């Protein structure tokens, strides 16, 4: 089989890309929760959270680019956009698994974090003078969300939807990475 080409293993690159995305997205989420849980409840807290959050947008899609860049540079190869899409897809799906593991592990390490986070958010809403009926609705919604997110089915659904969506966006960025770092053009 002289014509058979050996394709270098891309799993290291996939894991590096996935871990980076999981640490950035999961890590930023936890840091923000600590900030909200530890800060003095006030209007400023709500405003700062609202202003800081937009900075965290779109970090989740860098996995495909990181993985394809790492793969191309490590083996000094060119590859097709289809292979870039596959690497990105796997990176996104695995990043979702890592991010779920990180957040679940953290909730076991520090179970009081979630409690403090919700208490502080509710207290801040009271401080800004939210009407009682609206406040009650918000508290109910937060309670429901919390129960849903902590149930096994909630965790599984969250993992599945995150894996599908992160998989798709990282497949696209994987193609972009292949085009930039591994193209023959």
């Amino acid at each position, binding site marked *: 089989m002289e014509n058979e080409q050996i394709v270098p293993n891309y799993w290291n690159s996939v894991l590096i890309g996935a871990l980076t995305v999981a640490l950035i997205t999961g890590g930023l989420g936890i840091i923000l929760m600590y900030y909200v849980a530890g800060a003095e409840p006030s209007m400023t807290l709500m405003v700062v959270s609202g202003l800081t959050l*937009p900075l965290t947008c779109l970090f989740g899609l860098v996995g495909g680019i990181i993985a394809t860049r790492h793969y191309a540079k490590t083996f000094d190869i060119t590859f097709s956009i289809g292979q870039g899409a596959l690497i990105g897809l796997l990176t996104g799906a695995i990043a979702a698994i890592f991010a779920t593991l990180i957040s679940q592990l953290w909730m076991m390490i520090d179970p009081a974090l979630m409690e403090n986070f919700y208490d502080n958010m509710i207290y801040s809403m009271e401080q800004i003078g939210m009407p009682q009926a609206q406040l009650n609705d918000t508290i109910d919604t937060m309670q429901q969300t919390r129960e849903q997110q902590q149930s096994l089915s909630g965790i599984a659904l969250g993992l599945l939807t995150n894996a599908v969506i992160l998989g798709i966006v990282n497949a696209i960025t994987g193609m972009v990475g292949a085009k930039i770092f591994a193209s023959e053009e």
Partner: protein
Amino acid sequence: MNKTQIHNRGLYFSVAGASVILFVLALGPGLFGSTNTHLLSWQYEGFDLLCHQIPSRSYHLSGISMAVCSRCIGIYGAIMGGWLALPILSKMKITHKSKIGWLIGLIILNLADVFGNFFDMWSNTLNTRFALGAMLGLSVAMLFNNDFFPKK
């Protein structure tokens, strides 16, 4: 009769389908007439690692905020639109270098917009964020304008 030739047909149609699904999901529960408010819907959960999902920074559909902010919906919408329009866009002659230049330039422009707004240098709006996101999404789709539809 002239038939349009497509290289790598499987990949083109897979990405086209995936980009449509991504865009539809990003529109959020309002599209399906759901009354599920923020955070309870699976669409919100699916995008929570990708977008801040702040309602005041998102468009609303049927009174319910979309699953992503206005910049992100611009990106996903333009990737989908640009990808579906690749048969037409493939007729444009743009060098590989300039396509990458546009992409990097638009990433920098979007980052500058985020930080300029953050440091109070200017105030962006839903529509300006959408427009900048859409330009970025289109530049992503344009990157592939020579890959699927060969020039005659």
